[in-house]
Structure formats: structure tokens, C-alpha cells
């Protein structure tokens, strides 16, 4: 197909984890890039305007919540979908991320790769509205 692949930006400081994501999502046909901390993440989001951001919360320099709220306060970024991928599982963290505009929240250890791929695909369906 001549379609340009959908672009996903992964924000994850743990290499062991980001390697798997990157490989798996590339195999699924997405174009994938990576940021290791909150500052790099915001820079790349501004430059690339990806179709989907997979955002970890506990990352260096600026945490995921900060990244989310910076994106929300910037009208050029507020439409970009963000799926939070974190191992924080407390209700208050999940509620806070959703309040800041995250479209999905995945507790990493509790979800297998096929399910993650399915949820990424669901977010990238052309017709699905942001919320």
C-alpha cells in the first residue's frame, strides 16, 4: 500500500522495555521513534507531531504528568493522542493521567504485547475520535 505509515513516539527510559516496543510496533508496520526523558519527548513531539505517543510516567527531567500538562497547554499539541504506559497502578495516578487528557492507561506488567498492539491499533483507527 502506498500509505505513509502512522508515526508513534515512544517515551521510555528503560531500554529493556523500549527495545521490545520498538521492535514489535515496527513489525506491525508503524514508524517508531524513541525519547528517553521528558525534555527530549516534548522536543520530538513538537518536531514530529506523531499520530500517537506512548508515554511512561517515571522518566527523567520532566515526568509524564508534566509532559501531559505541557502538551495540553500548547494548542498545537493538545490534539495529539497519548497512551500512558506506566507501572504506577494506583487509582489516583490513573485518574490524574486521564484528567490531563490521556486516552488510555496501561499498567505495563499487567498487559501482554498482543493486547498492547490491539490497543495501539484501536487508537490509530482513522475514525476514532480522541475521547
Amino acid at each position: 500500500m502506498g500509505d505513509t505509515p502512522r508515526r508513534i513516539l515512544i517515551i521510555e527510559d528503560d531500554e529493556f522495555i523500549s527495545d521490545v516496543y520498538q521492535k514489535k510496533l515496527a513489525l506491525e508496520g508503524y514508524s517508531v521513534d524513541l525519547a528517553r526523558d521528558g525534555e527530549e519527548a516534548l522536543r520530538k513531539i513538537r518536531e514530529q507531531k506523531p499520530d500517537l505517543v506512548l508515554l511512561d510516567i517515571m522518566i527523567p527531567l520532566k515526568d509524564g504528568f508534566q509532559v501531559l500538562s505541557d502538551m495540553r497547554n500548547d494548542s498545537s499539541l493538545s490534539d495529539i493522542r497519548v497512551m500512558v504506559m506506566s507501572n504506577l497502578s494506583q487509582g489516583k495516578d490513573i485518574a490524574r493521567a486521564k484528567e490531563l487528557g490521556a486516552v488510555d492507561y496501561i499498567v505495563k506488567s499487567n498487559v501482554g504485547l498482543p493486547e498492547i498492539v490491539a490497543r495501539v491499533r484501536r487508537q490509530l483507527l482513522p475514525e476514532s475520535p480522541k475521547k
Partner: protein
Amino acid sequence: MASVVAKPSQGVLRPELAPVSPEYVRDLEKKVRQLEDTEKAILNVLEDARILEDQLRRQTEERESILRFLRSIGDGVVAIDLGGNILFINETAGRLLRPEGCSSDGCEDMKGSRCNEFFSLASEKSPDVSVDFLERIVENGKSFEDTRGILVRKGGGQVPVAYSVGPIRSGDARLLGCMIVLKDMTEEREVDSAKDRFLSVAAHQLRTPLSGMRWNMEMILSGDSGESSPEVKQSVERIHENTLRMIGLINDLLNVALLDAGQDPSTAEPIGISGEIASVFEELKPLAEKSRITLEYVAAKDSADWSVLSFPRRLYEVCENLIHNAVKYSRPDSSVVIRLEAAEKKGWCRLSVSDTGIGIPKSERERVFGKFFRASNALRWKTEGSGLGLAVVKNFVEEMGGQVSFESEEGKGTTFVVEIPLVVRK
């Protein structure tokens, strides 16, 4: 030595005494008796007065020592009359209400003031709503308490407290006011939240390497990392199973630890029940297939938009624990049936999970929902398991306002039934 003694001179004049009549003598005698009686009476009165004074002194001492006892109680004590005025307040309460100006007798001036000039009480669950404690006491006359209360100072600031409010009654049982006992819980709450933070961070740190392991193994097992020999695949499969078990244990421990802490109910949200069941169904299907167990999910037609009020993941945990147990304790070539339907109670849903597995021994049924409990036949069947799953289920379901029960026959199977009120749709 010759001494001269002056003798009364014969010549000194003495008043001439009137001749004493016998009547006069009798009269005198009578007066003397009267005087003696009066003296006795006065002495009696004086004695009585002394006794009374003694009693009074003792009473005053008693009263003062009672007040002294009250004053020196380590918890705060405030007595309030029906008009809302402070009748008594001890030092600890004084310091809690007005930390800046309370010497040892510094709260005396608060006496007689209206209590709401100094403080109000609220609950941690709804910190902005003051508790009308006096009205509550007047309405039903029963004492009540809140171990997670907040003392709101009118001068500014809040103190986390545990408090109890009880009625004060006169000898003839008339309601006179109420007695509030306050315990400063600042330190306890700090320890609580430190424990929460620790658990949250510990769980996060333990999960991070486990998620990486899980996914890398899933890449190997799906062939995404290239072909591997059947032997390697089998080993990886085993490591994968154990990794999932470890993740499950961390989740159970975290859930149980958080049970005691409670959640802020204002963050509860409607969560679609059939969606959660479907996710669990997908997640557990491979495990069931491996044990040659058929998972069946039967949902009522209109159940797609049924929601219950809960917190993220809690409903998932409930379904996961029940269905996982059913699969775990079933024999190969059997089926587990999950049913979601309307309950008999209007506006409630009923989720049942039935298996034809090993069942729960009769003698152990009462302990099924206890923490760290595993039935004796379950221990023989599968050695692993934290014994926390059903404790978590019960707690979460009750938090949703629902109830959980089960029917079981040893060797024949078990059905767990959860009934939860649905969120009324606007």
C-alpha cells in the same frame, strides 16, 4: 520581814442587794437552762456546719480532681451544651483548637464561647462538609465516631483526627449536650501515606523489570525474535508463566496493602462491567486453552452499557481473580461459565462464575474470604497462590456497594456470585 496586808476596810460601802424572792430564783434558773439549751443547739448547728463544710470541701476536691483528670487526659476533651456553647475544654483540646495561645490554663477563656467560633469537624472522605455533630446527637441520642476525621480550625488550618461524640445526660436522662473526644492523628496519617508511597514505588520498581521480561519472552514465543528450537520455546514458556505469577503476586500484595488505606470516593467513576469481563476473558483464554478448559461468556442483551461505580482496575481485579480461580481449580476437558445478567434486586447486576472443579471443603467455607487463606484441597492441587485473591474480591465488591457469595460442593465444583448496584444512567 514584816508585811502590811491591806484588808478591806470595814468602812467600804457595798451596794445594798435587794432581797431575793424565790420566784426570781426560779426565773433565773429557767433562763440559765434556756441558755444552756441554746448553747447546745448552737454547738449542734456549728457541728452540722462543720460536717457540711467538710462535705463541701471534699466535694470541691473531688470535683477539682475530676476536672484535673479531664484536663490532663492526653486526648482532647470538649463538652458542649445544647446551645453549642463550650462547657468544658481540656488542655489538649485547647492546643488542638488554638495552637498559638494556650498555656496550661489558657483554654479557660474558651469556656462559654460558642464552639463553632473555634472549630468544626469533617470527614476525610468529604473534607468540605462539616459534620453537624450536635444535631446528630439531638436527633438520635447515640454516640458516633470517625477514625478518619478532620478538625477544621476557625483560626485557619486543619488537623487529621480520630474523634468520637457522645451524649451528656442528667441524672434523669435528660439530654444536656455532647462530649467530644479528639485524638491527634497527624503522625499516624503521615506513617500511612509513607507506607502508601513506599508500596507504590516498590510495586513500580518490581514491575518494571518484570514487564521487560514478559514482553521479551512474548517476542520469542510469537516468533517475532526469530525462530527458536522447541526446547528453548518450552523453557521460555515456563519462565513466562513464572513471570506472570510473580506479577500476580505483586498485584495481590499491593491490592491488599491498599485495602486498608481506602480511596477517595470522589474519584470513583462508572466502569463498564461487560468490557472488563471481556478483557479478562481475552487475557485468560490462552491459559484456559492450555489446560483444555473451555471459557464461556454469556452476557445479557442489554449488559453492554451496564456500569458500576468503582476505581480503575478494581472491577478488572474482581473478574480476574474469580475467573482465574475457576480455571486454576478446574480439571482438563471441562468448562468455566461466566454469566452476566440482571439481578433479582432492581437496578443490580449479577455476575456468576461456575466451574466443575475441586470445590471448597465444607469445614473451610467460612474462611474463604480471609487474607492468606487457601483451602486444604487447593494447596494439594496447586501449591502456588497467595491466598489473597478472594479477600481482594470481597473488599472491592463491598466497596462498590455489592456483595459476594458462593455455592460449592467438594469434588463437583463451585459457583461464585457477585451482585453489584448499577450506576443509574442520566
